[in-house]
């Protein structure tokens, strides 16, 4: 990352964000009018992964912490909702915050140990912890083990029927908007500036008196909590919670989303989640060998868009204004 990049992240600006929000709010109606109701589910999925990828981007893109175990927090959130529902607690007001708490607690523990290491060792130790959770859930036969835990219903949100796909979409959209606004607020706060400063030069930040470990740890825990929320929503969308949610390939997928979207760009996670999921959807409709096409496209992104998709957008803007 060049030092010319400012620490302030404007994103789409107030009007741009509002326009995007309105467009996304209108989406289910447009889809229904076109007779493509199925894609409401796809859109919900994209929004949920946008939340998860944004939380990873918070620590990876802005904090320089390349966590290879982020799916564990998503999975823990999902299992919290599933296990609570199994115990008869279906209220979203209880289950979703509980999911965030469970994931935050796990992130607190994992972060406290992992943040002692740096670089590749950090990548591997976060992977190790995620794998431990993965195999733990595989072994817990009471909660479905390998086959997973089916959810008999969606979480109940006071006065709202989440069984309806559209209401669920709007709930997810609202939460995604809150997460995006919150993350933007956080990044543009002194906390966010210090976090980005640590990524640029840890030694210097420590020398001027920043509590590096505490700051990184807090960001790690917060990212875990947000990932837990994404997991809670994913459990509701899928109606099933399986250990596969925590598999390392899922962590890899989240990382790929952040990288293609743009690590360290405010909208990087969301953009990457949308790009990857929609590309998969699109390509798999055209060809059986869509993974080949996806691989070639990703390779093109690496070679021709070094800063990810948001870097492309930034560059074309610079050219236009330049």
């Amino acid at each position, binding site marked *: 990352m060049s030092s010319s990049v400012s620490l302030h992240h404007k994103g789409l600006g107030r009007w741009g964000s509002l326009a995007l929000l309105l467009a996304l709010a209108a989406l289910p109606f447009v889809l229904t009018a076109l007779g493509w109701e199925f894609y409401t589910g796809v859109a919900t999925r994209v929004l949920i992964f946008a939340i998860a990828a944004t939380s990873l981007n918070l620590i990876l893109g802005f904090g320089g912490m*390349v966590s290879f175990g982020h799916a564990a927090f998503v999975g823990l959130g999902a299992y919290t909702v599933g296990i609570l529902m199994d115990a008869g607690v279906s209220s979203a007001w209880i289950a979703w915050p509980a999911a965030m708490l469970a994931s935050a607690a796990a992130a607190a523990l994992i972060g406290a*140990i992992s943040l*002692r290491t740096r670089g590749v060792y950090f990548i*591997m130790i976060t992977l190790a912890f995620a794998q431990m959770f993965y195999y733990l859930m595989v072994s817990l036969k009471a909660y479905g*083990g390998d086959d997973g835990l089916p959810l008999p219903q969606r979480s109940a949100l006071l006065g709202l029927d989440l069984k309806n796909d559209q209401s669920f979409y709007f709930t997810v959209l609202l939460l995604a908007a809150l997460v995006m606004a919150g993350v933007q607020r956080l990044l543009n706060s002194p906390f966010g500036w210090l976090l980005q400063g640590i990524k640029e030069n840890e030694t210097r930040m420590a020398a001027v008196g920043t509590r590096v470990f505490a700051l990184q740890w807090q960001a790690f825990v917060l990212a875990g909590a947000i990932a837990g929320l994404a997991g809670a929503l994913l459990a509701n969308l899928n109606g099933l919670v399986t250990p596969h949610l925590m598999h390392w*390939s899922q962590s890899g997928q989240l990382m790929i989303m952040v990288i293609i979207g743009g690590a360290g760009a405010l909208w990087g996670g969301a953009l990457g989640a949308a790009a990857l999921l929609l590309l998969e959807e699109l390509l798999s409709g055209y060809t059986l060998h869509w993974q080949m096409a996806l*691989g070639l496209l990703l390779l093109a992104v690496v070679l021709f868009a070094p800063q990810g998709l948001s870097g492309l957008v930034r560059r074309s803007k610079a050219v236009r204004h330049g």
Partner: protein
Amino acid sequence: MDWILVAEQALNGLQFGLMLFLLAAGLTLVFGIMDMINLAHGSLYMVGAYLAAATALATGSFVLAVAAAVIGTALLGMLLELALLRRLYQRDHLSQVLATFALILISNEGVRMIWGEQPLMLNTPAALSGPVELLPGLMYPAYRLLIIGVGLAVALLLFLLVTRTRIGMWVRAGASNRAMATAMGVNIKRLFTLVFGFGAALCALAGALLGPLLAVQVGMGESILILAFVVIVIGGIGSIRGALVGALLVGLVDTLSRTLLPAVMRQLASPEVASNLGPALASILIYVLMAAVLFWKPQGLFPARG
């Protein structure tokens, strides 16, 4: 506890560990010298296994199959390095992760397009299909003994190559200080193409030898890749000795805990709990091992860089 079972499992662990070493050796050199994360290393292992299976199917000769796998994959690896990977050395780790992840997708789909969805069968050579009596009462498959023998021989060869030859000296110089090695006149570019091809050949050897024991199928490279990364992180990145110790540790812990842990658990808990928790604990154990090693030695057991 039955000592024959323990001895048998220890040999299995040794055999698995040596095969892991073949993968980890190339991975750790690429990582140690060029500071390049290559997620597609496991794909070379898969390609090697497929080339071996296809050659065996066509010619019926196991020796030819192994040779074709090793030579073919080494050429493919060098081609890959020349055409694509050397563009990535100067890039950050995230770009390398994305590019080599793309290579995984491409090679998986490529293999699927050429050989189809169904796993290929690779049979053990007929001459080695029987068991050998190592000690009175201890019967062990001859083929697995061959793998242990080849693994040990390659490990020894690699050790001599790295510690006793000029190329090995360059490799060690590159691993400990790349800029200084370049300044002293080592052609890092050519050296690295060579190292990459050699790493690919080792992958293919592991793939071809393990082919008859495991199914030759799409995606076989990914799970073993994670284990290979665990190995080099435990051993210390860039260190061949570390890779060997790490591979043997992981191989033994994984194999032994898989058989012995459920037995131990049965003594401590109800059979149902034991049969459920035993396998999971065994899978977790190598990650506990890695976390513990990194906790006390954050640079791995044998750090290559000062």
